[in-house]
């Protein structure tokens, strides 16, 4: 194709005039700039580790790494659930409250369920307790999803409302007080709850194992199942997805249920580790989860993001917070720095998207199918 005009520039005022340094990976030309941009969250993580280990001797120790990773796990599990919602093009603000609610549900069951009419106290086994908590969390997600799909409430509003409702429910159930000593009693047969968050397998805390399992399942669901593809399609272009026969409403409902389930899991892990359940548990957790998704490259407009990115995002946030504490930076600075990192991440993401768009537009202009129809694509 010959273009007589100097540059039609279909989609951009400023074409990058720089000549990027090019090298080749698997036969594809890649330039250094876009590699750095693509892997920015990962690079940021490595930079953090280098800086903090230079500033503190204890930062790189195995124990500290395990502790920090355990903290990361709480947020990562929430963020994986949040990723489903964000990929669909929604948002779930209620997960922090769901964390609290699920802990309280576990607490009330482990303390013994008073049945006044029968004059007995019921002590369900731990697996029943876990199941009940997870069900409650999923139910919160179901309500969110129903509000969004059936009643057409905007996700932000629906989940903001449920943020208050779920927190209120946790406070009502517990009457505002914390359930202590969730260890159970061997005589009652309800021991073992503290193993969920406090136990270790092969020396690694269960919370980390749970994060790994959730991440693997999420990768599988998003990449290998029709449901995963539908989530991406619905978030990318809901109208087109619907016309292609994607059950858009069902997809929307499910992502909120997944998010609620993940939140309930986190609630169980944390209350198990603390062996107590406070109704205030999980306040502002939703913001950390959203931040992890965003730093990991998920687009709040939907359709773009992956589990790997979200995990790296969760590690960046977790290591940054813990590292700043270890180095002894004041809390006020910690908050400020965290905010700045989130904004920086989104700015870099915008830059990357802009480059991608202009590249694709240039490709599209070069890909005109004006050739004779007799030449089939190889």
């Amino acid at each position, binding site marked *: *194709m010959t273009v007589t005009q100097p540059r039609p520039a279909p989609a951009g005022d400023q074409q990058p005039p720089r000549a990027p340094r090019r090298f080749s990976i698997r036969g594809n030309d890649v330039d250094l700039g876009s590699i750095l941009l693509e892997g920015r969250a990962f690079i940021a993580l490595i930079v953090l580790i280098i800086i903090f280990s230079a500033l503190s001797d204890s930062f790189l120790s195995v124990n500290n790494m395990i502790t920090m990773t355990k903290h990361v796990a709480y947020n990562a599990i929430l963020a994986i659930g949040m990723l489903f919602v964000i990929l669909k093009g929604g948002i779930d603000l209620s997960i922090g409250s769901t964390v609290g609610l699920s802990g309280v549900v576990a607490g009330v069951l482990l303390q013994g369920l008073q049945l006044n009419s029968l004059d007995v106290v019921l002590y369900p086994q731990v697996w029943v307790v876990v199941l009940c908590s997870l069900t409650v969390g999923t139910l919160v997600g179901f309500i969110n999803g129903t509000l969004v799909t059936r009643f057409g409430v905007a996700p932000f509003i629906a989940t903001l409302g449920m943020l208050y409702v779920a927190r209120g429910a946790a406070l009502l159930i517990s009457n505002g007080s914390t359930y202590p000593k969730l260890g159970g009693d061997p005589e009652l047969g309800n021991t073992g709850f503290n193993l969920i968050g406090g136990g270790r397998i092969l020396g690694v805390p269960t919370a980390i194992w749970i994060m790994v399992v959730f991440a693997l399942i999420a990768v599988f669901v998003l990449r*290998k199942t029709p449901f995963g*593809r539908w989530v991406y399609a619905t978030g990318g272009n809901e109208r087109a997805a619907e*016309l*292609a026969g*994607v059950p858009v409403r069902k997809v929307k409902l499910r992502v909120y249920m997944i998010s609620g389930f993940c939140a309930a899991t986190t609630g169980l892990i944390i209350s198990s580790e603390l062996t107590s359940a406070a109704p205030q548990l999980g306040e502002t957790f939703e913001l950390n989860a959203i931040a992890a998704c965003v730093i990991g490259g998920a687009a709040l407009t939907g359709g773009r993001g992956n589990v790997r990115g979200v995990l790296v995002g969760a590690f960046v946030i977790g290591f940054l917070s813990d590292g700043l504490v270890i180095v002894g930076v004041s809390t006020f600075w910690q908050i400020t720095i965290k905010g700045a990192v989130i904004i920086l991440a989104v700015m870099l993401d915008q830059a990357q998207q802009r480059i991608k768009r202009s590249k694709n537009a240039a490709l*599209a202009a070069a890909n005109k199918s004006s050739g004779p129809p007799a030449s089939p694509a190889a």
Partner: protein
Amino acid sequence: MTIPGTRAQPSTDVVMRAIGIAKSYGATQALKGVDFEIRRGTVTVLFGENGAGKSTLMKILSGVESPTSGLLELDGEEVVLRNTVDASARGIAIIHQELSLCANLSVRDNIFMGRELVRGGIVVNERQETAETLTLLERLEESLNPKTLVADLRLGQQQVVEIARALAGEARVLIMDEPTSALSGSEVEVLFRVIHELTAAGVAIVYISHHLEEALEIADHAVVFRDGALVATGERADIDLDWVISNMVGRSADDLSPDLLTEFGDVVLSLRDITVADPTNPARLSVDGFSLDVRAGELVCLYGLMGAGRTELLEALAGRVPVQSGTVTLKGRLITRESIAQRIDLGLALVPEDRQRDGLVQTMSVGENVSLAGLLSFVKGLWISTPGERTAVQQEISDVRVKTAGPAAAITSLSGGNQQKVVIGKVLLTAPEVLLLDEPTRGIDVGAKAEIFALMAREAERGLGVLFATSEVGEALNAANRVIVMSKGRIVREFDPRTATREELMIASGESTDEETGAGA
């Protein structure tokens, strides 16, 4: 330039001149070096088929787009219109083909949007705006409350507001792109009277309409476009309908015609008395008593103007909007309340009109877009079989001849024609019995158009029934076995494309089966 005190010879003074204007989108040339004059106090009417370049030229004249080459002169001096604000500051206003009102604002706020009357530099002078709005509406003989929300108006009234907005700007050059498409007969008369008033006051008007006779009625000067070039100009006294049509049609520049079958199979799709409500105004019917049979192997074309009800009919068949009454039968099976997914399963799939809005998921790759609709057929147990999907996608991509780096390429890296082939490939992968296509060649270049029609013909040969909508006469005549001309939701006439002429089709598309009554519904 000095402005003469009288309108003695208004047809001679040129307000605006376009010299050698060309515009390309990528490799598609929408305008090929057009010279064009707009004269003071006259109505210049632009004729041309869809895609002939009229709307592109109007966008350039009103600052929406900038030309690839060529220049614009205003009052004899070269100007560069950076954007629409720039253009309207110079007295050039446009009434867009698509309504560009904010539905959440009132009539008054829309009319003064972007040029609010301000008191003391801070406060919007609502009283004065209201008064001026009332004066404007009075002039257009439309009794509306200035504080009514635009969302609560019917389409025709919205168009009146759009016109009022253009009038409020004190334009010297007023461009009207299909201003009457939603107006009732009496509203059109009022508009024409206002146009006469404006020209008498020295305003230059550029008018585009598909209703040829209506446009001829107010023309002082006619210009005909074809394939991005200006092919004929004439004064009102020297021209008639035949002159317009024969110039619009010209020689058949694009011989699209693929080889078509002449023998067909059984009826695969049968429609009886279909009615569909207008989604934006449920009191009106978009499709009104439509009956049609499509046979296996047959290519049936729905030809009609914008708003004839073609899109609504196809969307109703695909399950996007509900069918109000009537029956749809697919291969002997009655389709009633099936969802879109169920209809795709049964073999009824739509290639939508708006590729970007309804056809593609822009965040996904070429391959993921192709497999989206037929995804469930690759599922083995719980998950998608990667080799199964890859093979099917590869095969479909080469089958519909998408020019791409591979299934993993971004969908936005494809040209319009190739994107359209992806949408068609996606639909074909669901193994349809009947293929519905709405304006399948919209916005793609000639080479790709021919390929897409060849594709449709090939699928028909494989035994599919094909029903496609178009507003281009050439396509209707060259690419179909049968042409159904639609107007106002009804079948006006049916043509055999081997014997019908372009003129017949165009005239038929402007007719309606009955006069619309009760326009104020």
